[in-house]
């Protein structure tokens, strides 16, 4: 019967899994390295690479019509805009008390 996919080879699945394990170990090692302010963005980028591998190979996005990739990329873009704006807003506010008396506890 006609299908719009072709099978990823067994080697492809195992290589992807190996890459995910290596990246997870890399994330773990990074957590013991003092990266300071870079720790969070680097950890999220590595997590993003892992998620991309899962989506492309395990979820077969690479085999499917581009409309499916468009949906996935749209969600990703909206998440980045949403979280980015929220964090930027809070991070650029005056550090004095805000409504409700909540402030930076580390500065108290």
């Amino acid at each position, binding site marked *: 019967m006609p299908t719009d996919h072709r099978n990823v080879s067994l080697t492809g699945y195992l290589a992807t899994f190996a890459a995910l*394990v290596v990246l997870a170990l890399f994330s773990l090692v990074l957590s013991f390295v003092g990266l300071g302010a870079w720790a969070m963005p680097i950890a999220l980028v590595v997590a993003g690479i892992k998620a991309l591998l899962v989506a492309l190979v395990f979820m077969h996005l690479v085999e499917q019509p581009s409309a499916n990739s468009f949906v996935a990329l749209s969600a990703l873009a909206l998440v980045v805009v949403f979280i980015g704006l929220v964090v930027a807003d809070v991070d650029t506010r005056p550090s004095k008390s805000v409504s409700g008396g909540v402030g930076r506890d580390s500065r108290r």
Partner: protein
Amino acid sequence: MPAPRTAEHFADLATQQRAARLGMWTFLASEVLLFAGLFALYGAYRVRYRDAFAEAVRHNTLWFGTTNTFVLLTSSLTVALAVRAIRADRCGSALVFVGLTIVLGLGFLGIKGFEYADHIEHGLLPARFFSSDVITGPGAIIFYTIYWIATGLHGVHVTAGLCVLGWLATRIAHDRVDATNPVALELGAMYWHLVDMIWLFLWPLLYLTR
């Protein structure tokens, strides 16, 4: 077995299956946006309480979170291999791989259960139930409130994924899902991969960024 049923508004089965995959991606996108709200909340409070959040992350048991990461990564491989097997009409292999995925998923929940018990014992609970005297302050309380909501919501998704996989296992066993009609297993596997992907972000936020 009965031939796969094509709904009358689709030209053929292949078109119906393509539509099903697109529909699943749309559903998963909405799930991602659900978790995005929690991630935004985490981000907002993390910049507000940098030190308290880092201390709370250091306080979490790295071993629990890391083990669960490898458990879920392995389960993603096994469910992907189940899809590969069903496409090749190896229903027995597909059933074994789905079974392995369910065992790994239950393992994830079991480990999470031990971790929750540890948190409860040490008073690391959400909101007004927080009673730890080891780490204190509003930042720690907010961290563990978000922690319980995020991991709890993720746990609900793991449980839902396990129910779907269990149902799919019975469908495969009764020859209702096979090489001519693998799309149900494909969609179930996609849901399971999403559960894995969400955890790939929760892991660094809750255990690694110390």
